[in-house]
């Protein structure tokens, strides 16, 4: 199995795209897209990261095994983030973090310790 040598041209093309991505993400941050701001920032970051993994790290030309390793890492990260966030997203308000200053649920009278 001879290894695949990526030509410098591709490296420079990737570099240029990464620069472009950085530019867009900074520009986008100053526009008001409401809730979409964070989504846009993360999508651009993910595209950039994918380019780095595929070309700089040669994942595109690597054996299946390596690609499986990468997929595993993304999958487990998704489990950790996704399942934890699903708990927070479905908790009632009084069980969210940092509500100590709020009134307790349906207090019949002042809540004093």
């Amino acid at each position, binding site marked *: 199995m001879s290894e695949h040598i990526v030509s410098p041209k591709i490296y420079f093309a990737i570099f240029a795209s990464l620069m472009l991505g*950085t530019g867009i993400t900074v520009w986008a*941050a*100053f526009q008001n897209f409401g809730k979409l701001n964070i989504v846009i920032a993360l999508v651009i970051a993910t595209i950039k990261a994918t380019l780095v993994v595929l070309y700089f790290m040669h994942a595109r030309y690597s054996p299946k095994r390596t690609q499986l390793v990468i997929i595993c890492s993304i999958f487990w990260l998704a489990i950790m983030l996704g399942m934890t966030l699903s708990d927070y997203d479905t908790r009632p308000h009084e069980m969210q973090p940092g509500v100590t200053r709020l009134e307790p649920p349906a207090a019949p009278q002042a809540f004093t310790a």
Partner: protein
Amino acid sequence: MHRTGDLYGQFETLEQQKETASLGMWVFLVTEVLFFGGMFLTYTINRSAFSTAFGIGSNTLDITLGAGNTVVLIMSSLTMAMAVWSAQVGKKKLVSIFLIATLGLGTVFLGVKGVEYKQKFDHHLIPGHGFDMKYHPTHPMPGDDPKELALEKKEVEEALAHDPDINFHGQLYFSLYFGMTGLHALHMIIGAGLLIWLIKGSFAGRFTPQYNTPVEVVGLYWHFVDIVWIYLFPLLYLIDRHR
């Protein structure tokens, strides 16, 4: 285990050795993904709970330095990739040059990070007893733009009306800022150490088209560190910039 030439005793062939080393690094990077993942999760939960405070904290960061550092780090990734390429095609001199360039860019990144940390220290934004979100707008430093300061002051005051615990929640932002960038910087420092080791090897002409595993494996690590920053930059520097 005895070593014959570039081949370690537990392996049968150089190819097996290379495959093993590269798989080893990939598996290590998986653990790194989850290591940083724990911090990203902490960040996500707290940011969604205290978005105002996180926005203000983010706006105190210097976006020019942050974006500049992003460019520097991506450039270092490019030179690292080029170093691997040079080794693969057997241009021994270029290997050294690109490795040194990578190390140089990495050092610049760390230097800029140091400047940013110093700024936060001066502005009383280090989490702990001296932490004060209002300190900087009320104690201008020479060279501060008065317009920006006024803006910052207004922001903090408005936020206080919504979130009386802004000092605590701002501290959470900065704890995470220092935690995440600090951990990232630690990885950069380790990477720089590995680069110095590689540069020594490249001076001795060790890396050839047949044997370039160390360059390739350190390259994987370096690119990973770059990827972490690609996420850190928007998550830490670019919250609520449009305000």
